[in-house]
């Protein structure tokens, strides 16, 4: 029996010797990871929803009355040259009047054809990377300096609320992630500690024969890795089964891609291995 054969054999023997403890560990970890997976999906879905809402945000740039029509082309070029602006559509007084008529259902300016009071404006679409409160405010200030007398509007209050909501979701996610991380480590370490405790005498004897700590601890590290990775995979298995059975037509649910799930399972496994070492460490002194 080589050292590796022994370690592998011992890993599965550990699980076989304490099937109840191993099962309890798998079930509790599966539930924890299921909770985490659900939050992950919810945050990805809300992020997508948030992005689609953000993409609707426009900046309205109202031009001063004293700006001659001959300068409109220059203003348009200057707007397009801004890195934050994706497109800038000119709304003339006539187009504004048509838009107003479309909105209220009646032309309110009949009889005022020569003195249309509606302002000329540009509707600017913003590059997705600059759809933040800070960038939008900076752009507004910059444009007001470049084109004096302009009045600029965008959904600032909505953006502010959306950003604070997004930040809140992120903070909750971080706290939840840390709690689940801690619970995973404690739960896994505790079940391995129970298994190791029953074998403490054997550890002592093996170390007296010249075995190193790594050799003695390795089966528990592998066990922690396998149990945690299996629990994570089981959590995703349950979710994927549910995905096939339940269909949402109102909105699209965003799932992580397979690579992300595999990476998550492996990282969780590594976390389990660390828990295994924590569980067995006390008995290796």
């Amino acid at each position, binding site marked *: *029996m080589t050292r590796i054969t022994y370690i592998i054999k011992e890993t599965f*023997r550990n699980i076989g010797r304490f099937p109840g403890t191993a099962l309890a560990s798998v079930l509790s970890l599966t539930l924890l990871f299921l909770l985490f997976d659900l939050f992950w999906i919810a945050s990805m879905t809300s992020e997508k929803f948030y992005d689609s809402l953000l993409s609707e945000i426009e900046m309205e740039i109202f031009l001063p009355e004293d700006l001659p029509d001959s300068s409109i082309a220059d203003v348009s070029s200057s707007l397009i040259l801004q890195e934050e602006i994706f497109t800038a559509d000119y709304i003339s007084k006539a187009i504004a009047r048509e838009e107003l008529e479309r909105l209220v259902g009646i032309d309110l300016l009949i009889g005022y054809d020569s003195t249309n009071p509606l302002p000329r404006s540009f509707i600017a679409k913003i590059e997705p990377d600059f759809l933040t409160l800070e960038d939008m405010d900076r752009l507004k200030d910059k444009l007001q300096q470049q084109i004096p007398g302009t009045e600029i509007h965008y959904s600032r209050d909505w953006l502010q609320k959306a950003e604070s909501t997004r930040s809140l979701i992120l903070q909750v996610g971080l706290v939840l992630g840390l709690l689940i991380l801690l619970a995973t480590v404690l739960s896994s370490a505790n079940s391995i500690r129970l298994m190791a405790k029953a*074998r403490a*005498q*054997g550890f002592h*004897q093996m*170390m*007296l*024969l*010249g075995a190193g700590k790594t050799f003695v601890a390795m089966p528990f590290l592998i066990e922690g890795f396998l149990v945690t990775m299996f629990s994570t995979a089981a959590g995703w298995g349950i979710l994927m089964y549910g995905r096939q059975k339940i269909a949402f037509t109102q909105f699209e649910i965003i799932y992580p891609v397979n690579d992300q799930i595999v990476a998550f399972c492996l990282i969780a496994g590594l976390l389990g291995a660390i828990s295994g070492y924590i569980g067995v460490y006390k008995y290796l002194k």
Partner: protein
Amino acid sequence: MSILMLILPGIGMDRELLIKLDSVSIKNDRGDKVFRDLKLLVEPGRSVVITGSSGSGKTLLIECLTGLRRIHSGSIVMFGKDISSGRKGAIRSIRRKIGGVGGAFGLVPSLSVSENIRMPMIISGERNKVQVDRLRKMLAEFSLIKRAGDFPSSLTRVEYSMVQYARASIGHQPLLIIDEPTAGLDSKSFRRVLDFLVKVAVSGRSMVVLTSEPIETKLPNTDYYQIANRALQ
């Protein structure tokens, strides 16, 4: 032998010794000094039998020789390595050269008889074929073939002891530390153990035998000591 040793005899001599205890003082858990200024030299191929009454410090001595306990002062050099400093790498390497039998060297309860016997070879990374060959030999030599798959909890005291002897011999460990070699043995096993001790004593391997009752059979290549007045005499 190195050129340096030829020019300056004495240099490197410690490397030739299996055990060198120099002015060793050992305290027990209560802090009482059990051994004072202990000196002991064991050369390869020679053995020592140390006799001492119960509570005289035999177990403490085993703990110090296996690196389980730090000495209070002096030095312990085994196989040319100073283990008094408690350096883990040195202790681990020395433990692999020691075959232990008796109270301190219990079997691993969760492993079968076969696995317990071959464990020193698994730890040292010996090839599987060599392990299997030597295991068969040990099982036959110590009449353990029928018990190969059993666990230590089901063994009789004599069988348990035989497994320890088999484990201490399978890796051809150069040093055997035996704590109370004949304790609890029936007359047949007692005779067998004595034969084993004689066989080891003439084989070129070394032994440190600690016993509370003197061994009647005179072992070849062996020095005898008695624990008295906190020293070996």
